[in-house]
């Protein structure tokens, strides 16, 4: 059984017990524990079930590489699935539960899959979807949906907050082990700004666990002293609990700081995303131990040798009373030696190598009385939910069992792989180090920055340097080299600290144990624990032609789990290389992509959530609308009233009332959101003639003209009324959504094409509040305000004038988007609310009512006026909309003119704008397609048109619509069919798009 030793651990504070629960069971650990060490201390070896076969699984690692032990943490607004027990710090009241099983962790019905494994081979998703077709929806999809995903998605809204933090430094060091600390000290001496990130809550990494001395002192003492030295350097900042998540272009790095995961009661944000720009990045990210591939290597109790050492030394946890060590290298002997020193039993060390003579560590182990079997391997591990023993064989053979050894734990080591993720994220290349059997950074091909020079350097184990002395020298040299390259003055008199050296025998690459393992053994030999990918799966993929490592990965799902193959990738590609009879470096690795370890979505979102997700633009009358029944409609970043509801009135009724009232009495529209762009300069007229399809340079001061704007593709992008202010100044109204993009469009042409033209443009949209006063009583209302002559004679249709109304300096445009007598009054934004209040008060007996955007839409549709975004969709040209009258024939050029001459644009088959009226008075579904004769290649009805706008008109008391129809204007009176998605077929007659007041008498009064 696994238990806590009386000796304690170097990270443990046994004076402070901590209570937590696992699957509802009350358990106790200590301050300093991870959830993994605390569970092990309580003999909870079984921690989860695997993804595909629901195999019982225990913890196998001690860090972020852990593939098995994922749990649900917390509850409700703080519930989170797939949390690694190895990176979860224990706190009082922690609630964890295991996942991916039913009904319980101990007894899981899904484990039947392990017996069905013959039917769930590599690529079974793809294979099962082949046939029969009827099974897709009713059998396969429910099955896959049920089995997909490990944890369950949280249902409650996240209670926590998150934030972003921008940081700049000369050198960023990722990793606070001895290499990172030595690099920080070296870099810090130059006076440069140094930032060091460490993913755990303690510094020093694994070196103190492995022991040895630095400059004659124990490693722990060295770490203590260097931390003290760094704390004295004002230019050096250390951040624990902060992971270097990803390295991106030009020295951009994301850090992920966990602020309150270990102390949920603490105030403040839970996670902080560091957005770092570094002059240079040093990755001191260490190395990860590789498992060995033998049958039963996933049974709870089989663990990485280094992890077992970590649990023992750091947390005083014994994983088992009797541990068999299986290895291909010297380093793992440290585990056997440490176990022995802790008074635990190590019945045997199975070393796949045959060494000519004992190296230092082998001799030490032998001296402790441990039985060492050279050239030996595990044939299979015995046990179900817990290791009970190992059957041993010779590594060279096919697995014939020589002997069975009873044990309750197995420590395995296949050697170490440098953590090259951050080096590789932005294009750093790797080379195969055959001596250490690992991929390490190819220093000649680093990721390159804006200046074409490498901006990432590795230090220590991340460089592929494993002995402590090499680690420290490499880190010192890396930092020294980086600072010198960056141009900092380095003190010349300081050299790297020296550590004890050990003579180690070389590692022997072992990718299959035993070497000639039978098919039966290979089917029980796991590569990717989390996704249940076995040696047999990778070999099958190779056999079926998935020879590229990227293809084999996706076919088998090797390395695609939440651990992204930190343990499995090298073993997997070595297996693939073996199956293909190719060299490992020719097979290559899959692409390393950020983040290194999963980060929370909350951290990525940061503060951009709820009201702060996007800025909200408010007109000066926003508050009044809100207080007067406005139902809001988002229009870009603005909110516009859709309708103003009265009492218990429905939205539809409110809209109908508003529309009728505008036609009969008086309506007020907040038109402040419409874009207002000043175009000024000696060449302003010439410029506007290029921008609009019609002529703006001939417009007289005091007059308005409706204009259309196209892009160079010829498509209509915006429309609006242009007013000429004076000899060299025009004011262009744009759509609400178009103000910023049209302003940018103008700037683009002025800056990049006609840069010698003397024109200024300014977007003054928010400087003005604009109120449309609309309806038969509009003139009377303005007269009551007083101060200006607004008579037909003085201010005719499409005139504008400056003046004062009700004491407010204003500009009045006599323009109409409704077909009614209409004035748009622009005042300083600060006067908007006062003018609105004045109009509401004096209009009371004139039947004044505010109206919203839906009424505006219906009013314009009754008049056959187009709306950008309804009648246009980026593929419509003005000629499609019967707007030829607004296209100048005299001008040599305007944006879009050449495109409108292309054959497709002049095609008479282009659908044209018409009005549509249902034969029964109902309202056509918006967006419905009209069907014609025959079918297309897919057997679908041919379409001959579509509805672009459709409303119920309260004035005409019937449905009215506009649409684009093939040969539409030539088919007046014809009835065409629109099948609706509701199954009903709507019959509509093609009519003139102007439904109301065809002669425009009402607006010209």
């Amino acid at each position, binding site marked *: 059984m696994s238990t806590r030793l009386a000796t304690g651990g170097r990270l443990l504070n046994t004076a402070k017990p901590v209570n937590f629960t696992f699957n509802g069971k009350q358990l106790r650990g200590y301050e300093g524990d991870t959830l993994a060490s605390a569970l092990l201390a309580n003999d909870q070896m079984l921690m989860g079930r695997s993804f595909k076969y629901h195999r019982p699984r225990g913890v196998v690692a001690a860090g972020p590489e852990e593939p098995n032990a994922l749990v649900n943490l917390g509850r409700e607004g703080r519930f989170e699935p797939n949390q690694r027990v190895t990176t979860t710090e224990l706190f009082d009241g922690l609630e964890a539960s295991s996942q991916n099983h039913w009904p319980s962790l101990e007894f899981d019905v899904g484990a039947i899959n392990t017996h069905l494994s013959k039917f769930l081979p590599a690529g079974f998703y793809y294979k099962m979807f082949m046939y029969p077709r009827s099974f897709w929806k009713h059998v396969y999809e429910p099955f896959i949906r049920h089995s997909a995903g490990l944890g369950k998605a949280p249902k409650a809204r996240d209670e926590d907050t998150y934030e972003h933090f921008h940081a700049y430094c000369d050198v960023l060091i990722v990793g606070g082990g001895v290499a990172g600390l030595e690099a920080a000290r070296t870099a810090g001496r130059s006076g440069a700004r140094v930032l060091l990130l460490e993913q755990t809550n303690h510094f020093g990494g694994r070196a103190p666990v492995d022991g040895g001395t630095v400059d004659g002192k124990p490693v722990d003492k060295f770490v203590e002293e260097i931390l003290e030295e760094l704390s004295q350097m004002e230019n050096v900042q250390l951040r624990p609990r902060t992971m270097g998540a990803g390295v991106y*272009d*030009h020295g951009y790095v994301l850090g992920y700081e966990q602020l309150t995961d270990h102390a949920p009661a603490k105030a403040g944000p839970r996670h902080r995303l560091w957005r770092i720009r570094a002059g240079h990045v040093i990755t001191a990210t260490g190395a990860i131990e590789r498992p060995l591939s033998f049958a039963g290597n996933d049974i709870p109790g089989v663990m990485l040798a280094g992890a077992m050492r970590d649990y023992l030394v750091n947390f005083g946890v014994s994983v088992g009373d009797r541990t068999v060590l299986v290895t291909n290298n010297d380093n793992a002997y440290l585990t056997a030696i440490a176990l022995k020193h802790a008074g635990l039993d190590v019945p045997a060390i199975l070393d796949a190598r045959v060494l000519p003579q004992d190296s230092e560590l082998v001799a030490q182990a032998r001296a402790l009385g441990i039985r060492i079997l050279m050239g030996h391997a595990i044939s299979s591990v015995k046990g179900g939910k817990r290791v009970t023993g190992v059957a041993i064989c010779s590594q060279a053979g096919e697995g014939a069992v020589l002997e069975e050894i009873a044990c309750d734990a197995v420590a395995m080591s296949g050697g170490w792989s440098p953590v090259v993720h951050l080096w590789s994220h932005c294009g750093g290349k790797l080379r195969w180090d055959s001596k250490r059997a690992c991929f390490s950074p190819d220093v000649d091909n680093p990721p*390159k920055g804006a200046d*074409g020079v490498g901006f990432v350097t590795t230090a220590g184990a991340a460089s592929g340097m494993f002995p402590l002395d090499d680690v420290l020298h490499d880190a010192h040299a890396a930092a020294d080299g980086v600072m010198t390259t960056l141009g900092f003055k380095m003190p010349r008199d300081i050299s790297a600290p020296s550590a004890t050296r050990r003579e180690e025998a070389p590692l022997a690459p072992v990718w299959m144990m035993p070497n000639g393992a039978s098919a039966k053994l290979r089917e029980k030999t796991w590569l990717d624990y989390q996704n249940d990918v076995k040696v047999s799966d990778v070999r099958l993929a190779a056999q079926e032609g998935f020879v590229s490592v990227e293809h084999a990965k996706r076919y088998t799902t090797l390395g695609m789990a939440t651990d992204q193959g930190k343990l499995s990738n090298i073993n997997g590609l070595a297996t693939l290389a073996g199956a293909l009879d190719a060299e490992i470096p020719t097979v290559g690795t899959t692409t390393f992509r950020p983040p290194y370890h999963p980060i929370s979505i909350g951290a990525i979102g940061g503060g951009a959530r709820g009201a702060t997700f996007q800025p909200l633009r408010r007109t000066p009358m926003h508050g009044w609308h809100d207080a007067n029944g406005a139902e809001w409609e988002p229009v870009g970043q603005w909110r516009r009233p859709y309708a103003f509801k009265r009492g218990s009135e429905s939205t539809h009724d409110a809209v109908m009332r508003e529309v009728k009232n505008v036609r009969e009495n008086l309506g007020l529209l907040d038109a402040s959101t419409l874009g207002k762009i000043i175009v000024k300069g000696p060449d302003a007229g010439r410029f506007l003639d290029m921008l609009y399809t019609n002529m703006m340079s001939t417009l007289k001061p005091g007059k308005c003209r409706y204009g259309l704007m196209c892009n160079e593709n010829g498509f209509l992008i915006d429309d609006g009324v242009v007013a000429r202010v004076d000899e060299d100044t025009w004011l262009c109204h744009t759509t609400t959504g178009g103000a910023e993009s049209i302003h940018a469009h103008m700037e*683009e042409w002025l800056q*990049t094409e006609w840069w010698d033209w003397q024109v200024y443009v300014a977007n003054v949209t928010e400087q003005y509040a604009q109120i449309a006063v609309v309806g038969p009583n509009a003139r009377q209302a303005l007269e009551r305000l007083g101060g200006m002559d607004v008579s037909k004679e003085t201010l005719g249709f499409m005139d504008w004038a400056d003046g004062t109304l009700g004491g407010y300096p204003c500009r009045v445009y006599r323009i109409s988007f409704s077909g009614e007598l209409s004035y748009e009054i622009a005042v300083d934004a600060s006067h908007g609310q006062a003018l609105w209040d004045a109009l509401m008060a004096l209009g009371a007996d004139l039947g004044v009512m505010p109206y919203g955007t839906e009424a505006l839409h219906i009013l314009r549709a009754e008049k056959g006026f187009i709306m950008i975004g309804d009648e246009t969709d980026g593929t419509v040209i003005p000629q499609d909309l019967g707007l030829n009258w607004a296209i100048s024939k005299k001008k040599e050029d305007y944006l879009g003119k*050449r*495109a409108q001459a*292309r054959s497709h644009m002049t095609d008479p088959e282009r659908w044209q704008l018409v009005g549509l009226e249902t034969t029964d008075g109902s309202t056509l579904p918006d967006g419905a397609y009209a069907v014609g004769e025959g079918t297309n290649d897919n057997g679908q009805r041919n379409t001959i048109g579509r509805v672009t706008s459709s409303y119920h008109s309260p004035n005409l008391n019937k449905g009215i619509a506009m649409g684009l129809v093939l040969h539409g204007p030539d088919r007046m009176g014809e009835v065409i069919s629109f099948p609706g998605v509701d199954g009903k077929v709507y019959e509509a007659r093609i009519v003139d798009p102007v439904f109301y007041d065809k002669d425009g008498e009402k607006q010209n009064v």
Partner: protein
Amino acid sequence: MLTIHCPNCGVTAEETEFHAHGEAHLKRFGPGSSEDEFEGYLFMRKNPKGVHFERWRHQYGCGKWFHVARCTMTLEVFGSYSAQTVEPPQEIIDAIQDRRPDFAAGPAR
């Protein structure tokens, strides 16, 4: 995320402050141009693996347009220069050739 230098306001900032707008130094063809000329202007774009001249706008800064010479493969930036020019200036060509001796400055299309 790239770092970009705006030659108009002198700021070097994160890519998120800017917006890329594709190939630089296009010659506009309007009414009267041939179908081929117009197609080339409107649709045909270079997509080199290597040195590329691009249009950029300092969208969330000074709002001005400029050009950037950049390597699409290594993301190396050779320099930023005025948008008010029909071809890259000599110092940009020099900066490119300094690091890519094989680079030949072709005629602007």
